[in-house]
């Protein structure tokens, strides 16, 4: 990959499908062709793993060989002529497909991979429509490989992607291929289940439906789900994910490629942590003094509180609010005579690094940096302390709390402190210690339901999007609620979309200058000048 971007790499002249082309030396035929927008089928090749060259579906015709060559491991060379669609190449791939399908159970109707399965796709292009194989198909094991992963051995094409993943990326090496010939299949060593923090990725990279995630098994068919590009909120790494949902329920998260952040992977902790969306404790309606009230009444009450805080106004933020929400918080604070804004964040965990250059951040919240970029670098530090001290001394009369932390893990000191405020409004994801005794409780949106931007631990600003279809959501997002409150209080003329709020933010906050939702690249953009980025990261500054 890096060769491709290095201008020093000499170019090689070669011919692809009759067209003379140039590519940087050292690339494989497959990668060079892909860069030139010619795709060649592949099973065992994965850009993040070493080359195995065992599936043979990527065969192409070459002028340097009498027999077809595998494009995923042969490299380009001066004068090489490659045909990807010649009769010889197509016949070679057809033959590979026929072999692959000999023992395949063809159980696509009940296979959870159907719809995103490479074997299925290629059999449309290259597969014979009937089998010449009259003998009995062989049977391979269907069993649990670990707490989250099952193998349906009959479907395995022994590409070893999963084995290589465990060897090279997670570095845990639990998987191996057992048996020989057409009986070979993936297995774990006795007594060592596959149970590493990245295990879920093997399900994504399995090109067929052999590895199945227990969590998603039989939950939905791929083509029925709504897919939303967003960012995982499990830690400050901010892995890019696709949230796949059906009828307003999240069914699974899968990683999206972002070479700057998570490459092709994500961790299991983030992957399976979405059940809180459906928790019984989830706050779904506004309450005032414990009684359910209409949304509008709740917003009005809060607006009155803001107009007349009756003393000091405290705002307690957490690192789950988006940059746009933080900006509105700042607007509220700047209009109050006497306001204290402080932050609370969940306790740090341990950071984990893996041999495959993948890291899980020790910071277990998605947007500390973004909130700091808007509300000041000390918001979770001394500003937070100042707010807590004021609360403990009973000096805060009106307090607004953002409690978007998805797990009931109250920070006792804060919980005690917020009780001392004369009145308290909580934007809460879940009912619990934060909401107990609160005068006003307003449903908060989870990170998967927000629309805005998060900045990850490298200061990379990334877009989060709500997985709900427009009009599906029964409750509005925090950003809309905040704007409704501000409008009633006369602090904002009207409610705007999150992109428009971001534009206002970009106008006044230096790190955000020149950025906008529509121009933010799919891979995110580093907040310039805000924090130094690790050496070598493209676009890093200061």
């Amino acid at each position, binding site marked *: 990959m890096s060769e491709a971007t290095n201008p020093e790499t000499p170019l090689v002249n070669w011919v692809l499908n009759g067209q003379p082309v140039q590519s940087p030396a050292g690339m494989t035929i497959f990668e060079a062709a892909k860069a030139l927008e010619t795709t060649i089928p592949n099973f065992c090749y994965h850009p993040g793993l070493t080359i195995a060259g065992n599936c043979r579906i990527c065969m192409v015709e070459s002028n340097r060989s009498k027999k077809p060559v595998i494009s995923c491991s042969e490299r380009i060379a001066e004068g090489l002529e490659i045909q990807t669609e010649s009769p010889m190449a197509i016949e070679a791939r057809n033959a590979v497909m026929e072999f692959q399908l000999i023992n395949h159970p063809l*159980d696509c*109707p*009940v296979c959870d991979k159907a719809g995103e399965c490479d074997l299925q796709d290629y059999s449309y292009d290259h597969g014979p429509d009937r089998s010449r194989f009259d003998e009995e198909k062989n049977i391979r094991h269907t069993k649990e490989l670990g707490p989250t992963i099952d193998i349906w051995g009959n479907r395995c094409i022994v590409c070893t992607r999963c084995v290589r993943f465990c060897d090279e990326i997670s570095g845990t090496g639990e998987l191996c291929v057992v048996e020989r010939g057409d009986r070979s299949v993936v297995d774990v060593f006795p007594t060592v289940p596959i149970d590493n923090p990245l295990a879920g990725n093997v399900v994504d990279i399995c090109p067929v439906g052999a590895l199945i995630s227990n969590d998603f*098994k*039989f*939950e939905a*068919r791929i083509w*029925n789900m709504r897919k939303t590009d967003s960012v995982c909120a499990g830690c400050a790494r901010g892995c890019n994910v696709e949230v796949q949902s059906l009828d307003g329920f999240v069914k699974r998260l899968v990683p999206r490629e972002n070479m700057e952040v998570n490459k092709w992977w994500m961790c299991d902790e983030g992957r399976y942590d979405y059940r809180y969306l459906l928790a019984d404790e989830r706050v779904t309606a506004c309450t005032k003094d414990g009684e359910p009230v209409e949304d509008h009444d709740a917003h009005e009450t809060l607006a009155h509180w803001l107009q007349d805080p009756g003393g000091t106004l405290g705002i307690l933020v957490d690192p789950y609010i988006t940059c746009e929400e933080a900006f509105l918080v700042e607007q509220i604070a700047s209009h109050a005579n006497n306001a204290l804004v402080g932050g609370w964040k969940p306790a740090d965990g341990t950071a984990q690094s893996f041999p495959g250059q993948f890291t899980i951040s020790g910071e277990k919240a998605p947007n500390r940096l973004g909130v700091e970029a808007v509300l000041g670098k000390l918001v979770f530090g001394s500003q937070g302390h100042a707010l807590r001290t004021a609360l403990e001394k009973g000096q805060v009369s009106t307090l607004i709390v953002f409690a978007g932390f998805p797990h009931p893990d109250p920070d006792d000191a804060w919980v005690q402190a917020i009780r001392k405020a004369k009145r308290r409004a909580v934007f809460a994801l879940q009912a619990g210690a934060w909401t107990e005794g609160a005068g006003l409780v307003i449903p908060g949106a989870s990170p998967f339901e927000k629309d805005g931007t998060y900045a990850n631990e490298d200061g990379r600003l990334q877009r989060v999007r709500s997985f709900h279809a427009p009009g599906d959501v029964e409750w509005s997002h925090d950003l809309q609620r905040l704007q409704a409150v501000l409008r009633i209080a006369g602090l904002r003329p009207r409610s705007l979309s999150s992109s428009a709020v971001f534009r206002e933010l970009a106008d006044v906050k230096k790190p955000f200058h020149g950025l906008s939702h529509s121009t933010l690249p799919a891979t995110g953009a580093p907040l310039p000048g805000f924090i130094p980025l690790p050496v070598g990261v493209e676009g890093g500054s200061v």
Partner: protein
Amino acid sequence: MAHDHDHDHDDGPAEPKGPGLAERTYFVPLIKGLANTLHHMFRVDANTQHYPEQRRAPAPGYRGEHRLKRDELGREKCVACFLCSTACPAHCIEIVAEEAPWSDREKRPRLFNIDMMRCIYCGMCEEACPCDAIELTPVFNIPSRTRGEKIYDKERLLSN
């Protein structure tokens, strides 16, 4: 078109002549209609069927109410592959899958609802099914008292 009458150009089409006296009294059409009625009343070759006492057998391939088929052991054949609901142009099939308790298959429907009021009886579901588990029967007289009854659940479909 609607504006045609608003234009008062000289070269416009001439106003059509109004109906004549005979037509305006409706007398002649009335007699004609009555004659037609009487003709049919006393027709000897009437092919009216006295439904529901008399019933005509539906033509072969007639597409009526659905049925979920059972296998030799009396279990539903459906494996919850969702292909019928994918093929259905009316989006009226709702399926929720679960793990099958039997060793010979993995999946079965926990929920299988068809909204018969949305169904257009096209038969696409039957065509899409890889297990021959759903079919449209010739049953066409399927009244019900409430809308709720028109959403057929798995039990109802299996008992058809």
